[in-house]
């Protein structure tokens, strides 16, 4: 494993979750002397769901809200198809996540925690149910826990969509003109945090901010879970210290040694060229490449693949996952998919397709209520940059690496028909 203090979160065996007794034996109980909120702020922990918002600041915002009734929502929806870290975490040690949620509840003054796991993951739902049952039997309840199972959609894990589902039974992202906005569930303030973030909170509550900062970098302290798929022996979730060179992380996963590129962050993330894989896995350094750690996803593109084809597949799926509330996203993303198809499967009109693609990306960017279209546009732009040579080859009509092979590296779920998509 990387580093001397790992694993922190993945302490245990995925698939055989720690019982409450095992969890309490492995981890010391919370130190009651600490001011949890201050420790959280000092730790520099940022959200592990994708947005990387400072967790301490978020908790303080919620703590300052007036209200006799507040909620904490643990977001284990994991809308990214290439991400498995939250599922792995919950199947290894759900109690760590639940502890963290309880700590956040005590920080902000909430009396109820809602854990949200996607409906079509029965194994994970079972692990969480068992863990909740164990806690109930031990009467450790100071806070009421509830398990909810929204339908799985890409946007269902988006904060406002998740809260809207809890409130109104539809996983639709909401328009939030002012950021940061306090989300409201039934008019009460609600704190939404990713499952991995909650697990980190649990550790910080026990071991302190200084311990947390012993791993990672100054700006991005701590460890993070990374889901690696694509040109690897098999998809795997690895815990790595932030700041580790990406190449080192890929080596641990036994990825293809000289990949063409790696998709970082998620399907709304960015491609990183194979030449830049010595970059540290840290948002401050990655921003120089226009990339970020995002939801902790790495999809490795092997030599036999074509970046444009992968991009096309992903964009078409992302377009289908649009909530279709806003015109630019509902119509623009499928249009991007069509242009990419024309570009990838070289027809005579490819150069017009490329120009249209660039124009449309500019037109769609920033015009949705949520960041879904922005993510797709960023993804497409990074593909055009990183696979620039491939683009030129396709425009000339000459075959590229993937023309012969049917090899596909990104796991893209099957496109469902629009009227079969479940949002409730």
């Amino acid at each position, binding site marked *: 494993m990387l580093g001397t203090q790992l694993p922190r979160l993945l302490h245990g065996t995925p698939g055989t979750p720690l019982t409450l007794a095992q969890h309490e034996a492995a981890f010391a109980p919370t130190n009651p002397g600490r001011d949890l909120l201050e420790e959280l702020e000092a730790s520099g922990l940022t959200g592990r769901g994708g947005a990387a918002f400072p967790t301490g600041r978020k908790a303080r915002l919620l703590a300052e809200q007036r209200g006799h009734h507040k909620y904490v929502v643990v977001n284990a929806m994991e809308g990214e198809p290439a991400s498995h870290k939250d599922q792995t975490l919950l199947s290894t040690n759900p109690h760590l996540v639940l502890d963290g949620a309880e700590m956040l509840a005590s920080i902000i003054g909430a009396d109820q925690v809602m854990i949200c796991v996607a409906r079509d993951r029965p194994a994970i739902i079972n692990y969480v149910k068992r863990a909740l049952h164990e806690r109930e039997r031990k009467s450790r309840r100071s806070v009421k826990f509830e398990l909810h199972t929204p339908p799985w959609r890409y946007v269902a894990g988006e904060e406002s969509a998740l809260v809207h589902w809890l409130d109104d039974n539809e996983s639709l992202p909401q*328009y939030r003109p002012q950021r940061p906005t306090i989300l409201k569930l039934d008019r009460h303030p609600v704190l939404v945090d990713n499952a991995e973030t909650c697990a980190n909170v649990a550790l910080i509550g026990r071991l302190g901010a200084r311990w947390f900062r012993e791993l990672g970098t100054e700006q991005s302290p701590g460890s993070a879970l990374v889901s690696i798929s694509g040109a690897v022996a098999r998809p795997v979730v690895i815990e790595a210290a932030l700041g580790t060179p990406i190449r080192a992380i890929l080596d641990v996963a036994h990825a293809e040694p000289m990949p063409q590129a790696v998709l970082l962050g998620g399907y709304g993330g960015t491609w990183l060229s194979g030449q830049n894989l010595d970059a540290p896995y840290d948002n401050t350094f990655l921003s120089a490449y226009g990339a970020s750690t995002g939801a902790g996803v790495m999809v490795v593109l092997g030599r036999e693949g074509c970046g444009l084809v992968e991009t096309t597949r992903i964009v078409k799926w992302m377009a289908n996952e649009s909530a279709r509330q806003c015109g*630019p996203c509902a119509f623009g993303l499928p249009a991007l998919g069509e242009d990419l198809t024309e570009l990838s499967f070289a027809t005579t009109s490819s150069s017009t397709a490329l120009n249209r693609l660039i124009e449309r990306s500019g037109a769609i960017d920033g*015009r949705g209520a949520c960041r879904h279209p922005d993510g797709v546009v960023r993804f497409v732009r990074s593909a055009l940059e990183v696979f620039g040579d491939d683009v030129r080859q396709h425009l000339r009509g000459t075959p590229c690496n993937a023309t012969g092979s049917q090899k596909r590296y990104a796991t893209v779920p099957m496109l469902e028909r629009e009227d079969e998509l479940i949002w409730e």
Partner: protein
Amino acid sequence: MGVRRRPGAFLLKVNPILCDGFGHCHELAPELVTMDEWGYPIIKTDPTPFENVGAYESARYAVRGCPRQALNIERLNEK
């Protein structure tokens, strides 16, 4: 419409969820709104100073004329 000269600028903002692409805003405030190929508004993201009275009036007409009430004017105070 008596618009006093005041400092600062404004932004015309649209709620993309409420917007249904009627296009009245583009007709009423063409200096602030253009249309994309699907009939939805692309609104200028640079603030317009209040001194530009014509633009401000157009913006107010657009807000009033939107069939879905999807537009609003955000005032920015330059201090």
